[in-house]
């Protein structure tokens, strides 16, 4: 091989590892990629048995006798299936996972991408109203590492002309 061929394959290998997905290939091939949370919410019973991939921020976590119940706020996913840091959302959903997930690790605000089997709905309260949550049974859960704070990485705000701290 020529030197540039080595270079090309090396680059391809690097990019390949960079684009690895959150969920395992075995679970990913079961996912019904056409199923969105909005569709699921509109007709929860007609999608029973389908596998959906959803992601978002943890709103609350409860350790129950039947497992761990994650209350999630859905967010759109990027190309690597990571939830985007945006205010765009299709609403809340719940995921019931086997075993014990530590609430100190799966804490409020952390980002999660999960694949789950559609179970139906679960009703709970949000503030003073009742909310019907689409409910999934976790097949695989991926907890994303926290995002670095861009404001400390690029502290330009402190020295550009016209900036006044008060």
């Amino acid at each position, binding site marked *: 091989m020529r030197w540039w061929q080595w270079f090309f394959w090396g680059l391809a290998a690097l990019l390949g590892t960079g684009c690895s997905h959150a969920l395992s290939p075995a679970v990913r091939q079961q996912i019904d990629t056409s199923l969105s949370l909005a569709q699921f919410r509109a007709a929860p019973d007609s999608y029973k048995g389908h596998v959906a991939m959803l992601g978002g921020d943890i709103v609350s976590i409860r350790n129950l006798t039947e497992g761990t119940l994650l209350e999630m*706020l859905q967010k759109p996913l990027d190309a690597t299936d990571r939830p985007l840091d945006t205010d765009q*959302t299709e609403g*809340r959903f719940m995921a019931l996972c086997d075993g014990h997930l530590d609430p100190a690790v799966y804490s409020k605000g952390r980002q999660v991408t999960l694949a789950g089997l559609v179970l139906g709905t679960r009703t709970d309260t949000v503030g*003073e109203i009742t909310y019907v949550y689409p409910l999934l049974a976790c097949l695989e859960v991926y907890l994303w590492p926290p995002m670095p704070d*861009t*404001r400390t990485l690029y502290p330009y705000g402190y020295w*550009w002309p016209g900036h006044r701290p008060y």
Partner: protein
Amino acid sequence: MVTGGPGTVHTSGDSLPSVASDRLCGSPAALKEEAMRWHWLIVLASLLGCVACGSVLSPQVQSLADPELSYAQLTSNPEAYVGKVVIIAGTIIEAVNTPEGTRLVLLQYPTNRRGHPQIDAPSGRRFLVLASEYLETAIYRSGRALMVAGEVRGQRELPIGKIVYRYPLLAPREMYLWPEGGGGSPLLHFGFGFGFSKSL
């Protein structure tokens, strides 16, 4: 700093002053190229500036608002101003979904030149915003900056700890939730940072 900096090159156009050419020690062609580069940076910077300075609320709703009405007047006697439209900027301190809609408690702050609430300025006035629709309280959550153009609907008393607080009640006509990050977009800062590193 070079005194014949971006301003001089930009305004003089094709005929560059001799002072500038002495300082930069370049050929006329190189100088012209330098001038063009600065020209684009200035155009880009002013475009970004315009985007950042635009108001977040529509001109229609802004024209409805009564500029004479002060927050002090409104909080002292909300019933007297029923039907008036006011613009309030502040941070959300409570967001609750209720059967009648989403109830937001807003702590009002004066705004900075971008219209973002200045949370280090003195405040103290609370307003109750009652949106008739369901708002996601995980998005409209405590700590977020919000701008509301709302119609005064009177007052409502709600407890804070052991006291009862009388809130002016607003029905929102238009709302704008500021993106998180303290009022400055990182992209805008990055643009300025890049431009100035060129001049040094």
